[in-house]
């Protein structure tokens, strides 16, 4: 299937946003909106993107609803149910129905929003969840979140070896609920992203997308390198592009020859302590081994 997104779908996101320059989350949302079109209602929990709807004006053409931090999928349940009733009564034409899109960062998705997401998946709610994952609470100054990777520095984790814990495997947690569709994406691979959103758009039921969102402000790199950092995340194997459907996980892009993870890490200030003042070969080795171990279990 060939889809010309530029001409076929009016972008549901206008120009001019208040996100930081080079925001990888914004890139992913923009590309997603291009596929989804205008007939959307975003249900949002507090995060970087909350500012999009309010200050000083919104780039969204679609609608927007705020919920409490833990509750965006619950809010989406209410919206979907109400839209369904209006459709049944004939008050909304099927053509005018809205895609209900939950939009949250990793803080909500990986943390306190999990319970509400689990409930929505349990009820087979017809919605699309887009999580922009910048691996920390970016909007409040990049404190640690459950998505923060091993060894990274954050505003609340400044030890010599960075975060002791590891990034939570949200993909596996969500997959365990057997949703209709689940995928990881990154804006640096726009065709892969667009195909997945297109696929999700055609389906009904819970559809979940985790977009790794390179964050110049929180990760510490020049905004002009957002796309490069995103490509490195994939090419080093740190961010596997994959999807889950009908009980199967399929990798949609397998790097022919993975680059060393160091090439991704050394370009970000949050990992600078692994290189300066002394190179920490132990932790760098752990991080490489973790990625190698993951890909050892992937069959092409």
């Amino acid at each position, binding site marked *: 299937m060939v889809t010309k997104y530029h001409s076929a779908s009016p972008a549901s996101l206008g120009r001019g946003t208040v996100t930081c320059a080079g925001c990888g989350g914004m890139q992913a949302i923009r590309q997603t909106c291009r596929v989804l079109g205008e007939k959307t209602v975003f249900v949002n929990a*507090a995060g970087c993107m*909350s500012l999009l709807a309010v200050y000083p004006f919104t780039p969204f053409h679609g609608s927007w609803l*705020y919920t*409490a*931090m*833990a509750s965006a999928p619950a809010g989406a349940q209410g919206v979907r149910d109400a839209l369904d009733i209006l459709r049944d009564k004939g008050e909304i034409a099927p053509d005018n129905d809205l895609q209900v899109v939950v939009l949250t960062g990793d*803080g909500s998705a990986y*943390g*306190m929003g999990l319970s509400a997401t689990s409930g929505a998946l349990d009820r087979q709610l017809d919605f699309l969840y887009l999580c922009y994952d910048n691996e920390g*609470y970016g*909007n*409040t*100054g990049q*404190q*640690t979140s*459950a998505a923060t990777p091993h060894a990274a520095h954050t*505003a*609340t*984790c*400044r*030890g010599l070896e960075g975060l002791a814990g590891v990034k939570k495997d949200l993909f596996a947690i969500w997959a365990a609920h057997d949703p209709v569709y689940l995928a990881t994406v990154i804006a640096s691979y726009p065709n892969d992203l667009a195909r997945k959103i297109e696929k999700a758009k055609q389906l009904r039921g819970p559809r979940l997308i985790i977009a790794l969102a390179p964050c110049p402000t929180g990760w510490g790199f020049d905004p002009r390198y957002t796309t490069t950092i995103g490509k490195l995340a994939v090419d080093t194997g740190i961010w596997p592009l994959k999807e889950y459907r009908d009980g199967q996980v399929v990798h949609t892009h397998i790097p022919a020859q993975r680059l060393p993870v160091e090439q991704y890490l050394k370009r970000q200030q949050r990992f600078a302590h692994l290189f300066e003042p002394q190179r920490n070969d132990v932790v760098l080795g752990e991080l490489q081994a973790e990625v190698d171990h993951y890909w050892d279990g992937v069959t092409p």
Partner: protein
Amino acid sequence: MTKRLFVKGNEAVAMGALEAGCRYYFGYPITPQSDIPEYISRELPKLGGEFIQAESEVASINMLLGASACGARAMTSSSSPGISLKQEGISYMAGSECPGLIVNVCRSGPGLGGIDASQADYFQSVKGGGHGGYHIIVLAPDSVQEMYDMAILGFDLSDRYRVPAMILADAVIGQMKEGLEPHSYVAPDDLETKDWALIGDGKAGEQKIIKSLYLGDGELEAHNNHLHAKYAVMQEKEVRYEGIELDDAKLVVTAYGSTARIAKTAIRLARKEGMKVGLLRPITLFPFPKAAFKQCKRDGQRILCFELNNGQMVEDVRLAVRDVEVDFYGRAPGAGSLPTPEEFLAKIRSRYEA
């Protein structure tokens, strides 16, 4: 010479808490208080303490309940929406008589609101924000120094009465930098050993049940009466307020926290114009300085209340003085800017001359 620092209010409250012996902090990021967990995440491990960034405010308040139940000095901090999430846990702490310090660097609401300074959480703080009809100690600092001092006072009062204590600050007090003279903590003589606490195997054989569940006939009623008897003692012994030029005042301005700072300048300007105006600044919002306001009534003074909300504390002032007219001037949450001393002065002038 006393060391003098130039720090944020959020850092000062964290420093005071650590000085008071707090070794457990459980929190979650939210503007405008994230400097508190950031500071404590750096400093507490050096003292052998435990910093946990929880998965939610609900989790962090219940971690505080757990640490408190074991007799530890522990704290959490947040800002308005996060404090709302903590309310159930605070109610459990109040019901279980577990002490602990909760810092609310208040922002504007309702809902997600905004991140600017606000005093819109007064009702929630002083009336028992959760279910069940309880009170907590509520302290209202108006400076960086008081953020430090009240962290210490909050822990002491909370331990003394086994009632949770809250510092009700706001974005101005939390985010501004000014001079701080830290001082060493000296534990009050009257603090009792926490022999009620769960300490695992420390007292083998002794069963401790910390609970807020009472099912026996009359038990819960007796428990509630016991809690309210403690509040009555606090009302008698722990009221704190600052009075400025009250003796000859014809008009008494009342305000707390950041608003009181603006009011202080306004009454100085009013005095320069020859108006006899004083300030009554509640420091403890619960227990509320009712007697001080009753004295204003006896002295025939008019009262003018300033707040960064649409009128909350003014209701407690009116209750204290009953049939005396109390004027109010407030700025709704989210005004985006603070009132100026001149703005307050204009209100003082109009009430003074009325």
